């Protein structure tokens, strides 16, 4: 008779969620990417396709697109578990809830953030970004999308107590994502104009280092409030 190890529980949760997200519900797996593509297309349609203008704003457009697309799949992080009682199981199994929350965040990132990171340079290319800025964009997205997943998951856990969170979740998450947006787009902007992107990239890295221990704790606290 033995309760499982915490890491095993977290990995089991990660495996379960990835199986669901990427395979069983794979029809929805591409939604964030398609949304990002659509939104990125809206900007040239609205602003005009003039290459020089688009090239200047390409980095910013990609970042706004990634933030919004990442937002789309946040509600689903905890809502399914709340509806079918899985969240109760997570809360009563005795494993450290912060580790389980971390597994959920990682699953969201692998399912949404990572694909958006890989698609980012493609979108930027379509918008005519400076070639020199693409590696910076990739690195910035790699640092920033986990932050978006982590902060977003905390807010998603807070709103799971409501029947339909919809716009409220966006209202909660977006102000908190502004630093990521500013530093991410700032890094790309610096690289595009021949400057040094290391300062904003370091800020993103610092934010990530700060969020990695804190966000799962906040998320676990939010889950406990939500299951009550």
């Amino acid at each position: 008779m033995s309760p499982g190890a915490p890491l095993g529980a977290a990995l089991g949760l990660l495996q379960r969620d990835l199986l669901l997200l990427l395979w069983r519900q794979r029809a929805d797996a591409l939604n964030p990417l398609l949304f990002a593509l659509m939104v990125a297309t809206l900007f040239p349609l609205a602003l005009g396709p003039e290459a020089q203008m688009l090239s200047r704003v390409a980095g910013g457009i990609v970042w706004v697109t990634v933030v919004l697309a990442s937002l789309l799949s946040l509600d689903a992080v905890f809502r399914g578990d709340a509806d079918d009682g899985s969240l109760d199981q997570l809360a009563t199994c005795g494993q450290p809830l912060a580790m389980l929350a971390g597994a959920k965040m990682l699953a969201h990132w692998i399912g949404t953030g990572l694909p958006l990171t890989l698609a980012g340079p493609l979108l930027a290319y379509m918008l005519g970004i400076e070639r020199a800025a693409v590696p910076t964009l990739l690195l910035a997205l790699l640092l920033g999308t986990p932050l978006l997943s982590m902060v977003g998951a905390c807010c998603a856990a807070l709103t799971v107590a409501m029947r339909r969170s919809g716009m409220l979740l966006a209202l909660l998450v977006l102000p908190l994502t502004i630093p990521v947006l500013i530093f991410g787009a700032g890094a790309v902007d610096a690289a595009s104009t021949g400057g040094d992107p290391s300062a904003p990239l370091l800020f993103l890295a610092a934010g990530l280092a700060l969020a990695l221990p804190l966000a799962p704790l906040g998320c676990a606290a939010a889950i406990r409030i939500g299951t009550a």
Partner: protein
Amino acid sequence: MNRFTLWFHKMGSPPTFYAFAERWRPWLLGGALLLTTVALVWGFGYAPADYLQGDSFRIMYIHVPAAWMAQFVFFVMAVSGFVAIVWRIKLAEIMCIASAPVGAAFTAIALATGSLWGRPTWGTYWVWDGRLTSTLILLFLYFGVIGLYRAIEDRRKAARAAGLLSIIGMINIPIIKYSVEWWNTLHQPASINVIKGSSSIDASMLWPLLLMAIATKLYYGWSALSRAQLMVLESERGKDWVRELAGLPMVGSSSRPVEPATRSSTT
């Protein structure tokens, strides 16, 4: 320290808190009104005009204290949210929520007055200045906390969720402010700060500002305590001390009505 802890514990009891709030409310409101009148008359009428901005700087006497309160109230919300979550004290939950609308109002006033201040100087009602943008984001955070509280049906769960969000918001506020400042210097390297920082104010202009700072805190105290009183009454409505206040007959001798569950044992 012992007296303070004792007072703190006593405040956790709803009837004690209600009586405390009832006693201090008139003084807080009176003090706030008095100080505001003195400060504004002084600031608008008697303080010397600024050599650069002329008379338009006087709006600072409303804008700066409002901006200070916007930050301060969110800090109070985060602290009471923390107390509510860690120690499960109902009154801390209530204080957190009671402070939110006042804080949001101060933020809106800071935004509006900041916008008015910018008009004579920049010719436009809105500039993407570092301070104004941060204040706008702070307003969004307030709306988020208030929105979250109103969207959850269970009052205590709603208050605790809003408290946690206040804590998350509080941790993020310095980060947001710094990032917006950084963004501002990145895109407007030669900008002069529209809104005067308090460090460059001459002493003769400072007094009305300090008086307003105290006045706004008193007003906040009055508003938050009043709202908290109402919330306490609502959440304790079945209890005897509330019935006594309302002049209704009391149900039982203890402070909570009791209906014991019957228990049987079968083998």
